[in-house]
């Protein structure tokens, strides 16, 4: 009985992983990040507002531009000085003309103001049936929390965050450190992620597709690198993805912080992938240059002999799960301390260590 249960579990796990893999492979285009994330190619009703206002205003602006530059060019061509003693009529002004070019722009502005308020009204209230996603900005990644299922993902380990197309989605945006700005141009305008506040931005009538997102408020060193994709799929596909993610998350057993814990044998190639996926590259270079933390160049040679009590493997193990135990001279301990408690399982940690030991 007990054995059967384990087989079923293993089968379900395999199926879920397969589903998730196929889904991502099919739905995420080959390019990691979609071509220009422009609101002029809207993926939602909210983003379509941009075009609805932009094109008419551009038309008005073009008319004004042509008129004013035309007048300027007319003046330049028509009134160039032909004789040295030209003395034009000394006109000091014209109240009627001046009144006209005060009133007409004022009227244009009044029309624009009305147009703006009308469109703004549509945005104001988040639909009550919207699916909530809590988005938290961190230096320098986004964390997505789906409260309905308790799923938590972050943009260091995946760049793909799924939403369903059958109902509006409300992103409740906040920050854990400095101010960021959550922006998926094809879904809606940006919303600042401010520590201590929650701002909501929503998207309805979402079309299936991949929508690139990014940080739009300068937030420090790797501000440019907070990229992610929102992938809008049918509710059925969304449910499959969600079940797979929830299942994978439930299968996850963090390795913990005990450096005596036995590890399986590691696979350096998976470790290399993890080094990128877990965001290690953000702070540790491979070429000897110093980013936030020490470079990993030559780690294979250096890990041995760092400590008299620890072997190379144990030293690396400790440095990942308890990064503040031993800090290399000239650096502060700013590394997240949750790699052992939340982010890596025993296999992943073993893979990472195996990879680091290959770095000459």
């Amino acid at each position: 009985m007990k054995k059967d249960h384990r087989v079923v579990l293993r089968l379900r796990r395999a199926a879920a992983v397969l589903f998730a893999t196929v889904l991502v492979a099919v739905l995420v285009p080959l390019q990691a990040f979609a071509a220009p994330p422009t609101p002029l190619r809207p993926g939602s009703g909210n983003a379509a507002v941009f075009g609805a206002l932009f094109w008419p205003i551009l038309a008005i602006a073009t008319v004004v531009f042509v008129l004013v530059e035309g007048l300027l060019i007319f003046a330049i061509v028509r009134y160039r000085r032909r004789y040295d003693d030209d003395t034009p009529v000394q006109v000091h002004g014209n109240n009627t003309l001046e009144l006209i070019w005060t009133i007409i722009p004022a009227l244009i502005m009044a029309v624009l103001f009305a147009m703006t308020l009308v469109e703004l009204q549509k945005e104001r209230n988040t639909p009550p049936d919207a699916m909530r996603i809590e988005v938290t900005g961190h230096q320098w990644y986004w964390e997505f929390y789906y409260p309905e299922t308790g799923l938590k993902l972050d943009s260091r380990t995946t760049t793909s965050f799924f939403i369903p197309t059958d109902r509006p989605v409300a992103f409740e945006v906040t920050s854990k450190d400095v101010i960021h700005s959550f922006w998926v141009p094809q879904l809606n305008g940006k919303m600042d992620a401010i520590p201590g506040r929650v701002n909501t931005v929503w998207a309805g009538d979402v079309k299936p597709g991949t929508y690139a997102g990014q940080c739009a408020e300068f937030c420090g060193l790797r501000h440019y690198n907070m990229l992610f994709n929102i992938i809008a799929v049918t509710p059925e596909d969304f449910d499959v993805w969600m079940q797979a993610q929830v299942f994978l998350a439930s299968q996850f057993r963090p390795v913990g912080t005990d450096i005596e814990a036995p590890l399986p044998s590691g696979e350096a190639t998976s470790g290399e992938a993890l080094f990128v996926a877990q965001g290690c590259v953000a702070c540790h270079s491979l070429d000897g240059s110093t980013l936030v933390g020490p470079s990993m160049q030559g780690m294979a040679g250096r890990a041995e002999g760092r400590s008299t009590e620890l072997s190379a493997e144990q030293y690396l193990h400790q440095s990942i799960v308890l990064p503040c135990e031993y800090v290399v001279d000239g650096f502060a301990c700013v590394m997240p301390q949750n790699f052992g408690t939340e982010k890596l399982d025993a296999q992943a940690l073993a893979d990472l260590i195996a990879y680091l030991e290959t770095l000459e």
Partner: protein
Amino acid sequence: MAATTYPGSAVTRRASLVDWLTTVDHKKIGIMYVILAFLFFAAGGTLALLIRWELALPGQQLLDADQYNKVFSMHGTTMIFLFVIPMLVGLGNYFVPLQIGARDMAFPRLNALSLWMTVGGGILLYSSWLVPGGAAAIGWTGYAPLTSTTFSPSSSVDLWAIGLIVLGSASTAGAVNFIVTTLNMRAPGMTMWRLPLFTWSVLVTAFMVLLATPMLSGALAMQLADRNLGTQFFVPESGDPVLWQHLFWFYSHPAVYIMVVPAMGVISEILPVFSRKPIFGYSAIVWSSIAIGVLGFTTWAHHMFTTGLSPLLESFFILSTMIIAVPTGVKMFNWIFTMIGGSLKFDTPLLFSIGFLSMFLIGGLSGVFQAVLPLDRQLHDTYWVVAHFHYVIFGGTVFGLVAGAYYWLPKMFGFKLGEGLGKIHFWLMFIGFNLTFFPMHILGLLGMPRRYFDYPAERGWTEYNLAATIGAFIILLAFLVFLVNVIMSAIRREPAGDDPWEGNTLEWATTSPPPVHNFDRIPVVSSLRPVRDARLRLAGEPVEDELH
């Protein structure tokens, strides 16, 4: 000719270094401001070229992310606080007393203090490159809580804040000086409604500086207290990081007009002279400057449309931002109608003035898009905004300043600048400027955020970035031509004469350069264009009654 009416006396003694360091003469102080501003323009321009070099193509080119963030932060800070504002103060210092027929500023010692505090503020800001960790990487906006000791432990942020407080205090003192000078030191007959438009623009600007700058200084002092004394003004939960943005923009939006209005004043001086016509609608220009000065204080939160303002505040700031476009539009038409019906002589100052009109127009129009909140939510903090404010500050103010340089350098140094090289300078700058900044509108529409060290090739932003980088180096070439022109003209020393352009205002009624006391006899003014009147009288032509 005019000098025979208001004779001046030539400078006979060469000034020594000690003279320059201890001077309280508004003209020497003005020249030192201009030189200081140009030095920092070279520094800020170098930083701009580093930014463009880095962004030319995807991937790392020249800098790393940390260096890049420092470079763009110091580029903005330098250009605003150490180039544009000191340059305008320099021209104001030199020409306001001359234009109103005064012998100096009202408080010459305070004037010298402002100059040397500006030098000190610049040194403080730039010394931040020397502290461990290098200059502050916080943008020119220094948003909390990125500026807290948690996220920016380096003391460069303290130097940045102290430097800006020193610069701001210098500006505030200078503003008092300009206001008192303009109100109290005018020559007999120089009523407020005969005040030259450049002087009017400096007066309006001085009031804005006086009311806005202390707000910035206060906010910076709070930031310093948060960093060093454990206060929590801008700390999340116990304080409010958004409060910083309110205080910062309460200064920094008026600061945009502080940077633009005097350049508008320069244009309002040049257009009538080179059109041989009075300015079209003098009082409309004055009132629109005053309107901009007042309304400039009502629009600050349009920089904060993405922070989650209340609906009422959103509507208010949309409306106020749209209203301020009206007086700006009024000026535009008044300038063009000054040229229409005139007799235009296309010397370099007029070319740059036309550059101002055509480029500032684009900056004004793109600003209207940003007033429309649903558009701003998309355009905010993208390259669209970078394009917009460079069309205003570079296309507007810098073209205006260069126009002013070609117009007034002959008065300041007594020799003419080469016209041929001046025209090459203009065309290179006009082409380079548009090639640099026009594609940025498209980059913004394509979703490229500003302050990005790097971008993936797949985003489709590469071509526009490359174009912008090429344009930036054409601008560099333009300013090298300017430098060569100034040096060659200084060597050639072709005398400018007292009044090389057939000017209207009193600075042309004295020698080039003017004597220490400006005028041997204080002129008496009876119209808007006293020097033109004197010229006509001397030629025996009738002088028509002017409106004011």
